């Protein structure tokens, strides 16, 4: 079921285009990764979804209906640039933001207690934010983001600045919220950090959509057909055996008679064909497919797109 639909959004600032015809869709119980380098337009898009700014054209739908001011209560937003009121006490602060999201005092109190007990931080209630460490403040910010149980969770660079322990904690919470059915839009420039948790992704570069879809489909699409083969035997004989059906991309000697070679399948050859070809020549110790990282996919997609644009 669709939760968020962004349709043909265009946003221009004085002198430059921040978003150029961007469309995407997130589903219930799905983690959607909005990826792209710094300055690609991710934050601009997120601000439009949060109704902090408006688009020049295009529209945003939430649950199939055009997004309205009241829908703010259905969205949880953890900004990249996040701060808290330094002089305010932790409990009061969380209560304040909860009530701004439309929770009653009673509801807010129950949920604050629940989250603080879960994170075992009820002793912070009367601390001022300025007394907290950065990691502690980040937990508070995360609680503020999810306290009103939003249908759509927007996390802008959620792991930046988190220490590894807190990053893991937040990752677990995100997975749990996903299980409960929330749709999560996660934006980051650090592509590798989200690979393992995203179901779908969109790649934005220089205000344009470069690539989008299911992460596995994309990975399949960008499969390079390169395998890493570890063997015992002579590299010379190995390379000769490949002949015209396969190409040797890269090789590395481990010790005197063992090596790792990266081999690309050419034409319609399969991995079986490759194995058949090299088995007589060397002793195979290990075979792995080399899967492109999101970074590689991004670079490849940008290259293709630019190539396409020039045609």
């Amino acid at each position: 079921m669709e939760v968020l639909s962004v349709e043909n959004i265009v946003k221009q600032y004085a002198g430059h285009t921040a978003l150029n015809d961007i469309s995407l869709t997130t589903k219930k119980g799905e983690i959607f990764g909005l990826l792209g380098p710094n300055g690609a337009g991710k934050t601009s898009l997120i601000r439009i979804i949060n109704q902090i700014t408006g688009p020049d054209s295009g529209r945003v739908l939430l649950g199939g209906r055009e997004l309205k001011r009241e829908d703010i209560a259905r969205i949880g937003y953890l900004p990249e640039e996040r701060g808290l009121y330094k002089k305010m006490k932790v409990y009061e602060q969380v209560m304040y933001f909860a009530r701004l999201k439309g929770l009653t005092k009673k509801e807010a109190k129950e949920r604050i207690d629940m989250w603080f007990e879960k994170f075992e931080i009820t002793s912070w209630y009367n601390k001022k934010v300025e007394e907290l460490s950065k990691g502690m403040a980040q937990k508070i910010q995360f609680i503020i983001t999810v306290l009103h149980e939003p249908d759509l969770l927007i996390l802008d660079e959620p792991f930046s600045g988190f220490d590894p322990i807190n990053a893991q904690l937040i990752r677990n919470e995100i997975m749990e919220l996903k299980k409960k059915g929330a749709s999560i839009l996660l934006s980051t420039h650090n592509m590798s950090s989200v690979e393992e948790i995203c179901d779908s992704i969109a790649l934005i570069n220089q205000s344009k959509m470069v690539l989008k879809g299911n992460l596995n489909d994309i990975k399949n699409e960008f499969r390079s057909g390169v395998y890493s083969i570890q063997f015992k035997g002579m590299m010379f004989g190995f390379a000769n055996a490949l002949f015209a059906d396969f190409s040797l991309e890269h090789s590395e000697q481990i010790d005197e008679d063992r090596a790792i070679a990266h081999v690309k399948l050419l034409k319609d050859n399969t991995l079986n064909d490759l194995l058949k070809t090299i088995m007589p020549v060397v002793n195979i110790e290990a075979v792995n497919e080399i899967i492109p990282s999101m970074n590689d996919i991004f670079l490849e997609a940008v290259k293709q797109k630019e190539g396409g644009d020039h045609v």
Partner: protein
Amino acid sequence: MSKTGLIIQREYGSRVRKKSFLIITLLVPLIIAGLGFLAMWLSVQETKQVKVLVADPENLCNGKIFVGDNANPPAIFYFYEDYLEPSVFYESGQYDDYDILIGIRKEVITNKSIKVFYRERMSKQTEYYIRDRIELRLEEYFAMDRGITLTEYRRIRQEFNFILENVDPYKTDTEPAQIVGFAISILIFIFILTYAGQVMRGVIEEKTSRVVEIVISSVKPIQLMMGKIIGIGLVGLTQFAIWAVIIGLGLTFIRIFFFQDMVDPSNLADALAPIEGMSPDLLTDQAAAVTRESDLIWIIYNGIPWPTLITLFVLYFMGGYLLYGALFAMIGAAVDSETDSQQVMIPVMLPLMFSYFIGILVIANPNGPAAAWFSQIPFSSPIIMLQLVAADTIEIWQVVLSLTILAGTIILIIWGAAKVYRTGILMYGKKASWKEIFKWMRH
């Protein structure tokens, strides 16, 4: 509760609960009441002795004035047996030793009118002493002239009419009421500056700490801006209300325990002892007069229309504060840090400072065109108007007009400031120029 309500509550609550707010709110009025007491006390402890030159061409006083058994009388009398023009007294230089010129002309017998020219306005205490002595001397003369006893004369006498004028025809005196008015102007100026400044610092704090990102994902920027302005404004009003109550109680306390004799006629017998056989209603008249023994005390307790001034203070403080508060919020949103704000603030600070200086000019001339114009211009009216109301040189329609113009301007300014605010609070890392600010306003 509405979202704006929640913001107002936070802005208000977080400030009112601060220790510094409590200390300033309680300490300042005590200091003001203390200083007020000191000023009033000093005003009745005056020891300066004035020299009075009595120009008495008909020699009605016969060169004598009974000074009473006062060892240190507030005035000493000298006589000049000829006419003396006040201009000569003022300009010639040979009379510089004398502070006051009193002309007793032949006509005094019929018109009972005596002119008193002073270089510097004497205190009420001195004034009443001089009147008392002159009157007493002339009564003796009149009684003798008619062949009746002094006691009989007093029964049929008419009040003398003393006309006080500054010997310098170009100088108008600053009434104490105007000084009180100016003090209120300064207070309003300080209030506007303090609380509008708090709005700016609040906006900058939210912007630099980035907490604004979280807030405006829940509320509209204008709700945040207005919530902040209103919340902080209510802090100002709370402080003012507490001050008014404490100062009011303090002044009442001072009046009851220290200056009671100024108010209670029964305490006047001693002060008026020299005049024998005075009728009781005359005593009451004198009591009313002696209440004014100190101008300052009289002004504070009777001469200032406090309810009107307090009402107008609240209206003009709110008006001036909303106007400048919105402008300061706009500046806070446009800059990236508090140190950046100084330069951008200049165009907004200028009219505020300018109004303050106009205020100083207006004390000297509350009837002039500057007073009339600057009490209407919305950027200066909150500071100038109360002074004119205290000096009683303004019509009610002028106050209504000024408030209407102020209200209209506030709406315009808030509308423009909100546009700049919503763009500015999300612009990090650079300070906006005025050119950009105007561009955001038009956007």
